[in-house]
């Protein structure tokens, strides 16, 4: 069923990076939870000669929730996210996304880095992370670099990561929460059923509100373009203003206008456009209502 491959299980990050770097000639791939890779190998969409298992690389796990920044290891599993009180408070969208992610067995092994690196437009952790202004840290034997997640994807299943690099960390600045500033951060996963289904339309929204004005807006959209992306036109309609139904409507239309979905077995492009607009409107309206209620 599988094309034969060699499996290496390095015990630390240096070993993993070394193994990836040594892979010249043979196609080498990292494997974290394997919940994408194994499926792709079984379907023969991927045929690596060497697989570097990351299961024993402790450096990829662990969460740091600081005053200013939150930083999680690339090997953080979806279940880890669900079990963290800190994440629940700081990034509700990520938790909502995790709650609706796959089924229990997959959540226990699927990782954040794997979700990003698979490059799927329907990867559910990516819209929340984009709406949180996350950075990714890439490491190789040659060194590390950190860049905004927003600059990570180049096109459908294409990204800036070199084959010898690993995503070691994902970090984002804590959203402000004080007496004069508050944030709302939400995610909606629309799929053909509630449990364990591939997303048809995913919308993540962050609003920061101060003094009755939306000081920051992030709208990130999943499964409606070749990559998960930020709807910048929608964000700029919202930022620096008090929100009215008309303005929210304008933002929702802008979100749809910046989408370019396809027809597939799950839904038509027309339906995705319809729902990306409706859900963007809903999430922003709800967020605004909640922020002004507070």
């Amino acid at each position, binding site marked *: *069923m599988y094309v034969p491959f060699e499996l290496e299980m390095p015990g630390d990050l240096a070993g993993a990076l070394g193994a990836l770097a040594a892979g010249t000639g043979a196609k080498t791939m990292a494997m974290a939870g394997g919940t994408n890779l194994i499926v792709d190998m079984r379907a023969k969409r991927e045929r690596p000669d060497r697989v570097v298992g990351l299961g024993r690389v402790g450096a990829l796990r662990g969460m740091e929730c600081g005053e200013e920044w939150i930083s999680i290891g690339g090997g953080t599993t979806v279940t880890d996210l669900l079990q963290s009180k800190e994440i629940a408070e700081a990034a509700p969208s990520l938790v909502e996304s995790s709650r609706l992610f796959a*089924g229990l067995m997959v959540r226990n092994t699927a990782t954040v880095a794997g979700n990003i690196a698979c490059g799927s437009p329907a990867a559910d952790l990516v819209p929340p992370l984009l709406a949180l202004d996350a950075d990714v840290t890439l490491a190789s034997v040659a060194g590390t670099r950190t860049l905004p997640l927003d600059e990570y994807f180049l096109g459908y299943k294409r990204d800036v990561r070199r084959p010898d690099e690993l995503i070691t960390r994902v970090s984002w600045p804590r959203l402000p929460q004080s007496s004069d500033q508050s944030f709302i951060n939400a995610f909606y996963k*629309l799929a*053909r*059923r*509630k*449990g*364990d*289904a*591939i997303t*048809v*339309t995913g919308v993540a929204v962050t609003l920061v509100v101060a003094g009755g004005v939306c000081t920051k807006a992030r709208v990130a959209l999943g499964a409606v373009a070749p990559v998960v992306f930020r709807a910048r036109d929608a964000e700029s309609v919202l930022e620096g203003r008090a929100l009215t139904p008309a303005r929210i409507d304008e933002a929702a239309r802008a979100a749809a206008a910046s989408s370019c979905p396809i027809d597939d*077995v*799950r*839904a*038509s492009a027309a*339906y995705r456009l*319809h*729902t990306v607009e*409706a*859900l963007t409107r*809903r999430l922003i309206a709800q967020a605004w209502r909640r922020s002004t209620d507070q």
Partner: protein
Amino acid sequence: MNRPNIRFRQVGRPLTRTDAPGKVTGRTPYAGDYVMPGMLHMGVVRADIASARLVRLDVSKARALAGVACVLTAADLPERTASTDIPGQVGQKRLDTGQQILVRERVRYFGEPLALIAAETRDIADHAMELVEIELEPIPGVYDPLEAMKPGAPVVTAPDNIVAERRIRKGDVEAGFAAADLVVENTFRTPFQEHAFLEPEVGLAWVDENDVVNIRVSTQVIEHFRPIADAIGVPHNKVRIRGALVGGGFGGKEDLTVEVYLALLTKRTGRPVRLEYTREDSFVGHGKRHPFILTYRTGVTKEGKITALDVTMVADSGAYVFLSPYVLLYALVAAPGPYRVDNLNVFARAVATNNMFTSAFRGFGALQACAAYEQQMDEVAQAVGLDRLELRRRNFLKTGEPMSTGFVPPSAIWTDQCAERAWAALGEPAPAEGPRCVGRGIACYQQSYGRLTFLHDTSEAWVGVEMDGTVVVRSGVTDIGAGQVSALGQIAVEVLGVTLDNVVVYNSDSAVTPLAGTTTATRALYMTGNAVKQAAEGVRARLVDRAARAFGVEPDAVDLGDNLAFVVDDPEKSMPLVELVRTCGAEGIHRSELAMFRAPFTDFLDPETGQGQAHPDYAYGAHAVEVAVDVDTGEVEVLKSVAAHDVGQCINPAAVEGQIQGGAQNGQGYALSEEMLYEEGRLITPSFSEYLMPTAMDMPKVECIILESRSGVGPYGAKGIGEPAMTPVAPAIANAVADAIGVRVFEMPITPERVVRALKRRDEAARSGPVA
């Protein structure tokens, strides 16, 4: 007609099923768990175009691969076919509609098998499959049954694409429409459905010392040994099917699946051979539920009395006939539903296409009819301005009245009670909030249990009492997870006065357990339950007789219970069952009995009028749901799901509930999310990442209301619940969605996208002003 209240000792209790401990602890071997030394592993090479001519099939590289033991193509086989007609224990002649075992020249559906490979390992078999060189020349195919009926359409199999045609002509439909105040006409579409059992098709075959081909296989029908023998050209007594507990059937393991391939290769190689379908194989390896297009034209008076009904049905039978003629017959008979319609025309056709072949699936045509007639009842109610339940009440078929075929079901008809109970149990409606609209729906049904009576169905069982008072039951019945075997045990111990832990049931071996017929058609309990009861009563009569002599009383004064024989009016007079059995043993009194239960035997329905008896009896009930619809996204959430069924008599209420819970889930997926998409006959949703059954997160708590009229023709007045549990679920959901959003989605599954489109239609209609 209802039987008086009787006190049962074992029957009617939610006992722990005999199959439960083994399954829960993982001790139970399924067919796929069996292995043998030296066994080979098989793979099936399939066509990836739905309609084509096989130009070249070169297996030489596959044959040459190290570790490949055998490769078979049609060129290696004599011209035989595999039977696709009426599986099971019937004497009737099978129709000559068999399927080619491997493609000889013409590919008729996506996935049709081209070659069989057996190798030392599954990996080698997989590798060999990739080495097979296939050249297929596409032939124009037909993928829509309506297209397939047009003149000039590509013909799937000569002479034409009409696979079966059936009619009911009853009363005077013209006069009925003339007497109507209103005529309501609608067309409904129902989809393909995949059985999606947890356990894909799997089997292990070997040739034994008597030259008998043994096949350990996951099947609903061990009587397939006969068509397997015919297909491989050996006498019937040279094939033996040994079943195993089945990891789900739902009709998908009613036809032959892997058996013939296994038999051919074990014969050819002389070695044990194992074949396990992958999920992808399974999607193309067994027939699907027939999609139907159903047009209902109903004449009704202002008072809500149906005066006439005209129905046309078209079923997509796919590339091979399989059980299409019978599925169609069920749909025909069920066309008016549980309603009294004296003026009735039904015209039903099953049409061949180059889609996946379609065959048995829980509900078997009657379910598709229900999906239409119950939606139509809501449309009619709306048209005449009557409450939905009230319209139904005014038309329910009542006990003792003739149904569509003129036959009077022998049992009680409790549709009204079931409907009232289910509807009432919905309780207070959930609030509608923001974009969420809330709606309710109900659907009632009529579903047969037991096979078509012209098949002359029979079932056998053997019951014996051991010297220590324990009980053995032998019967060929297959247990597909619904508790079939355990129920037989419960009946036997009821009759013999012992408890369930005192019985062992041997089942599912075509050579050594008496043949019981299929586990299909909601017939296992009805048929084999009656056979076991008959056999156990035979044993009991002799035991009681002997005890009566010992007690010096008449036999009818003696009862068996709690492992004792005793005099009913004088329980002091008793003896342990063990003692009684030993006495019988010593005196040569027969402690076992082989019984055959025969269903009513009838002729075929009148071909012109469709009048006559089609089934032994029918079950009735209702399902009610409450849904919330998100009008922005079209998502439907089922909030409440309530089933009320008259099962006649529960043998094991826990098992009955299990069927109802499963039926609610099966029907909900059919209504909302399960979709098989084909492009030119090619399945483009061949895995569980696209084919979406409801998960635990999608299911509400299902409430089960079990009514017992004790009027059925099964043991103790039992009816059946396997198929009925699912039949009304989808239309109840469809009606609830329509209730919530004020517009109907006429095609299932009711996907979010279809809901959004229907809402757009509604809003456009509202904008263009009120309709006349």
